[in-house]
């Protein structure tokens, strides 16, 4: 083999770099995100009214698209009332509707966003709810 020593050293460095993240994390998987919905605002609602604007599955999958649509409807079209599939009406507002129930941004939004390494810029402008120490 030509330049065998150099190639082997190079391979070892390469392997080291590739394996490093696994060694660094100790071979354990990062804890799964567990967003909390037990804010005082939600807990004081009667049991059968503890529902989001749409089903949990829909919100998990589509909330980002929904927020984009709400934004366009409110800001660009001047339409402010959302009628959910259950027929209930909501004021379309991140700050004044979503976060009134989900007042725990860190445990609700950030929990999954950090896990999936997405960094939405909502809070650059929108005022996040005051977090209560729990």
């Amino acid at each position, binding site marked *: 083999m030509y330049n065998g020593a150099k190639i082997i050293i190079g391979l070892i460095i390469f392997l080291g770099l590739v394996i490093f993240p696994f060694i660094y994390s100790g071979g354990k998987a990062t804890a799964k995100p567990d967003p909390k919905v037990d804010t005082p605002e939600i807990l004081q609602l009667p049991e059968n009214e503890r529902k989001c604007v749409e089903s949990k599955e829909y919100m998990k999958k589509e909330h980002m698209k929904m927020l984009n649509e709400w*934004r366009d409807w409110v800001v*660009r079209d001047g339409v402010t009332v959302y*009628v959910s599939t259950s027929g209930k009406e909501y004021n379309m507002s991140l700050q004044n509707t979503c976060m009134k129930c989900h007042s725990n941004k860190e445990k609700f939004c950030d929990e999954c966003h950090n896990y999936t390494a997405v960094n939405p*810029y909502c809070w650059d402008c929108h*005022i996040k709810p005051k977090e209560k120490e729990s």
Partner: protein
Amino acid sequence: MSMDRREFIKIAGISSLLGLGGVSGVGAIKGRVEASQIKKSPEALQAKRWAMVVDMSKFKTEEDYQVCIDACHRVHNVPHITDNPKHEIKWLWPDTYEHSFPGNEDEYRADKYQHMPFLLLCNHCDNPPCVRVCPTQATFKRKSDGIVMMDMHRCIGCRFCMAGCPYGARSFNYKDPRPYIDESTQNPEFPTRMKGVVEKCTFCYERLAHGLEPACVEAAKEVAAKKGTTPGLVFGDLEDPNSEVRKILSERFTIRRKPDLGTGPSVYYII
């Protein structure tokens, strides 16, 4: 199976046509389902074209207009930046006669007019130059009520609109405005802005949607109620002949800022 060129082009053409048709069909259905889920708030104030009349006889002292400015800036979390006048953010602000109505100066005009602090704001033009120059449609004229709106999500901070606006109604956030907003008095119902976007008066679109008049108009009404006079700011529909604004315009002599530029401003002044 062999295929000649003619055959191949035929099949390719038909299948791409089918594909395009299918996609647009799905799009049409999807759009309809979503659109049926929203509606206008029944309490919202509606107009074809919102306009404002400023009665300068009600704005004599600094306090008179400061009440309105404070109301506006508090409701919209407008930062109070004083360390550099170029970084100042203004939605509603006072300026002199010669700056407000240039081309109309007269060295012999009475001092009280010359130094009268005119209350200025975005004119919500009928033909807004800022909208024409905006490359992202972040600023746009709402078809429903004529308000020249800002969509902060889209603003890229190019400042073309500031160059385009002949009224200086737009302010750029040269730095993060948050440190300049008092957290104890900020309005938690309205967002702030971030560094790098342009902002201006929006005729309180968020209040109109909930049946409230603009914050400055409300403040002017409160002052008027205390003093027992008519309010200094009147808000209404310019296209409705029975609106309060139109009644004033048909009775009093009013002027607008730089109407010769053809922008069609919607803010009128009674001197």
